[in-house]
C-alpha cells in the first residue's frame, strides 16, 4: 500500500486540475501578451483564475498577482516592502521559526546593515505579543510572519498581531506567509487588513511552479524582477499559463469543498494521533491537538530513533513522511523550527512530520500506524543496547 503523508511538502494534483493543465498545453498555448485572438483568450482565462482566487480569499481581483510559487511570493513581498520603505526606517521584525525563504531574506538584509528582530516562540509555537509590541519602534518598516508554521502546524493569531502592530506604528507593514494556511483555514483578507499575503498552488492540489501574492490596494512594492511588466510590473516574465489555469481550477474546487475537506483531514489526523499515543511508547507530540494547530500537520518525536532512519523504514513500506520540512532537509543541521520551540536534541533528532490530505483514507491510516509502530520497534531493537 502507498500512503502519502507528506502533504505539507507538496500534494497530489486533482484529476480535474491535470486535465486543465493538459488542455492549456495542448490547445490554448497562446501567449497572453499577444495581440491576436489566441492571446486574448488565454488572457481572459488568466483573469478568470484571478477572480476565482480573489473570491476565495475575499479580496479584489486587482489585488492578486501570480508568481512562480511561495518562495517567490515571499521574496517579492518582503524585499519589495523593504526596498520601497528603506528610507523611512531600517528595522524589520520576523520570527525564529519562519520558512527559510523569509529567514534568508532577513539574514541577507541584516548583513547589509538592516536591523532585524527575531521573535521568540513558546513551546506551542506561539509568539509573545508583548515582545512584539516592545520590538516595534519608529523605524520598523515591516513585520513578516507566518500564519501556519510548516513543521509543527501552530496557527498564529494574525488579527491580534496586526492590532498590536497598527496601534504601535501605523506605518509598519505586515507580510503574512499564508502558504500552509491557504485552503486549511478560513481566510478573509478584507477583515484581516494585512498588507501582503503569500500562497502556493502545489500545496493545495494544484500544479507546481505557480503561486500567488495578495497585495493590498494602496501598498506599493518595488519590483525585484524586471522585464515586460506582466502582472502589472510586480512579476515580469511570460505567465506560467498552464500553472495559473490549473491553480484556478484547484481553487475553484476548494471553494465548494475546503471546509468539509479540512474537517475530514482533522478527523483522520486525530485518529492517527490516538493510534500513536496508544501503541507507541516514548513519543512526544510536538503539535498542539486543538484548534490552535492547522488540521493537516502533525509533528511527533520518537525518542531514541533517528528521524531519517525511521523515514527510510517507512518509505520502504510505502509510507511517505518528512523529517524537517522538505526545503530545510537539504541544509545540514537540525530543524530551526523545533529548536525555536525549545525541543531537546534527542526530540529534534527523532522528529517526524506527518501531513495529511483528503485523499488519505482510514484504511491507509491504519496501515501507516501499524507500519510506524513496527518500524519504531525494529529500529529501537537494533540501536538500543
Amino acid at each position: 500500500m502507498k500512503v502519502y503523508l507528506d502533504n505539507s511538502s507538496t500534494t497530489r494534483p486533482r484529476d480535474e486540475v491535470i486535465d486543465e493543465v493538459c488542455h492549456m498545453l495542448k490547445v490554448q498555448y497562446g501567449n497572453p501578451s499577444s495581440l491576436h485572438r489566441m492571446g486574448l483568450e488565454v488572457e481572459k482565462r488568466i483573469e478568470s483564475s484571478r477572480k476565482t482566487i480573489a473570491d476565495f480569499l475575499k479580496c479584489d481581483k486587482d489585488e492578486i498577482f501570480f508568481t512562480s510559487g511561495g518562495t517567490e511570493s515571499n521574496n517579492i513581498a518582503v524585499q519589495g516592502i523593504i526596498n520601497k520603505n528603506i528610507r523611512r526606517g531600517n528595522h524589520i521584525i520576523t520570527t525564529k521559526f519562519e520558512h527559510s525563504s523569509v529567514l534568508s531574506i532577513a539574514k541577507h538584509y541584516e548583513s547589509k546593515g538592516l536591523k532585524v528582530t527575531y521573535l521568540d516562540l513558546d513551546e506551542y509555537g506561539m509568539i509573545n505579543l508583548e515582545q512584539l509590541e516592545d520590538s516595534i519602534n519608529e523605524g520598523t518598516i515591516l513585520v513578516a510572519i507566518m500564519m501556519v508554521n510548516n513543521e509543527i502546524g501552530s496557527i498564529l493569531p494574525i488579527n491580534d498581531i496586526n492590532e498590536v502592530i497598527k496601534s504601535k506604528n501605523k506605518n509598519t507593514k505586515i507580510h503574512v506567509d499564508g502558504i500552509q494556511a491557504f485552503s486549511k483555514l478560513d481566510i478573509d483578507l478584507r477583515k484581516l487588513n494585512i498588507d501582503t499575503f503569500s500562497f502556493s498552488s502545489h500545496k493545495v492540489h494544484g500544479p507546481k511552479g505557480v503561486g500567488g501574492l495578495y497585495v493590498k490596494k494602496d501598498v506599493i512594492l518595488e519590483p525585484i524582477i524586471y522585464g515586460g511588466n506582466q502582472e502589472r510590473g510586480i512579476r515580469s516574465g511570460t505567465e506560467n499559463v498552464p500553472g495559473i489555469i490549473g491553480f484556478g481550477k484547484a481553487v475553484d474546487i476548494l471553494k465548494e469543498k475546503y471546509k468539509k475537506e479540512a474537517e475530514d483531514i482533522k478527523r483522520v489526523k486525530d485518529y492517527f494521533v490516538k493510534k500513536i499515543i496508544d501503541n507507541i511508547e516514548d513519543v512526544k507530540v510536538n503539535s498542539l491537538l486543538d484548534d490552535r494547530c492547522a488540521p493537516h500537520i502533525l509533528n511527533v518525536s520518537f525518542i531514541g530513533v533517528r528521524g531519517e532512519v525511521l523515514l527510510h523504514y517507512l518509505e520502504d513500506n510505502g509510507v511517505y513522511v518528512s523529517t524537517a520540512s522538505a526545503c530545510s532537509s537539504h541544509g545540514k543541521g537540525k530543524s530551526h523550527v523545533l529548536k525555536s520551540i525549545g525541543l531537546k536534541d534527542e526530540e529534534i533528532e527523532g522528529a517526524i512530520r506527518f501531513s495529511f490530505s483528503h485523499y488519505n483514507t482510514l484504511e491507509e491510516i491504519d496501515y501507516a500506524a501499524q507500519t510506524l509502530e513496527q518500524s519504531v520497534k525494529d529500529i529501537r531493537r537494533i540501536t538500543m543496547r
Partner: protein
Amino acid sequence: MDKVISVSFGEVALKGQNRYFFENKLVRNIKNIARGMGETKVYKEQSKIYIEAEEEYKEELIKRLRRIFGIVNISPSYRIEKDIDEIKKHSLKLLEEVRSKRGIKTFKVDVNRADKRFQPNSVELAKEVGAYILSNSEGFTVDVHNPEAYIYIDIRTNCYIYTEKIKAFGGLPVGTNGKGLLLLSGGIDSPVAGFMIAKRGVEISAVHYHSYPFTSERAEEKVKALAEILTNYCGKIKLFSVNLLNIQKEINEKCPEDEMTIISRRFMMKIAEKIAMKEEIDALITGESLGQVASQTIKGINVTNSSVKLPVLRPLIGMDKVEITEISKEIGTFETSILPFEDCCTVFLPKHPVTRPKLEDIEESEKALDNEKLVEDAIDKMEVYEIRP
C-alpha cells in the same frame, strides 16, 4: 600543412616485448574517448600517437586526452613535409603565433630525429632553423638555457612541429595491468584510491556497502555519481551495491560493541573477495590511510587484512588527508564526496571502537556469527550497475 594532436607516452614505450600491446591498448582508449567528437583518425608513427580531428572539437579532445592514463604529453602540432625549407617557414610562423599570444622574446629550437636517415642531423638542423628565424624576423633572440618558447621539431615518417607540451597524468593504459575491485564508500579517500590504481593500468570494478533503510537511497546515488566521475579516467565501471544491514544487526546483537567497526570491515573484505573471485578480479583496492580512523591503525589493518587472501592495494596508506583532498579536487570527485549523506560506517559507530584489536579476540567474537551464510545472503541480494562515462 595539416594540424594534428600529437601524444607522447613515457613509460609505455619502455615495455620491451609488450610495447605493442600497451600501445594498441592506448590507441583503443583514445578512440573510445574520441567517439562523438566528429571525424577523427588515430594513427601511430614511431612510438607516438597522432590524432587528426576537426578544429572545433580539439579543445574538448585535449581535455579528454589528459584523462587517459599512459599519456605523458599532448601537443597541438603542424604536420608538414620533411623538407628543410618547409620546416624553416613553419617554424617561424609558429613562433610568431606564440608571440602574438603571449609576447615572448627568447626561443630555442629542439630537434628530435627519429628518422636518422634525414639530413642534416639534429644539432645542425636546430642551428639552421634558428638562424633562419633570426634573419627573417625582428625582436627574437636565442636562449638555449632558459627560453620563453620552444620550437619542437620531430622528424619521423612525417615532420611535426609544435611549441606546447600539455602535461597529462602519465601512468599506464587502463586494461594493461589486470583488474581490481575498489571498495568505494561515499567519502573523499576511496575514489582517489581507485584513481591511483587505475593510473597503473588496472581495470576498475567497485563494490559499495550501504545499510538501507538506515542510510538514504541518495547515498547510493552519490556513490554512483562518484563512480561516473571515475569512468572519465578508467572507462566503464561495474558497480556492486551490497546491503550490509543484516550483517550489522547480527554483529550488533552478538558481538562486543567496541568491535562493531572492525568486524564489519572484515565482512566488507570477505564479501569483496567473494565478488572478486566470481568476476576474475585479482586484487582489492581500499582508500585506507594509516592512522586516519580507529580501524586504520596498523593493528586494525592487520586484523582486516587477515580476513582475505587476495592482495589488498592501499595506494593512500602513507598519505595525509590534505594530500588526498588535493588529488580528489584535481580529479573532480571532491565536490561530490562532501555531499552530506550518511554512509553505512556511521550507522552503528561504537562510542569507543577498539584501536588495537587482537586477531584471536576478533575471531573468537566472530564465532557467534554464521559468517558463510551472512556473506552468501548479502551477495545474493546485491544489485549490480554498469556505470558508463
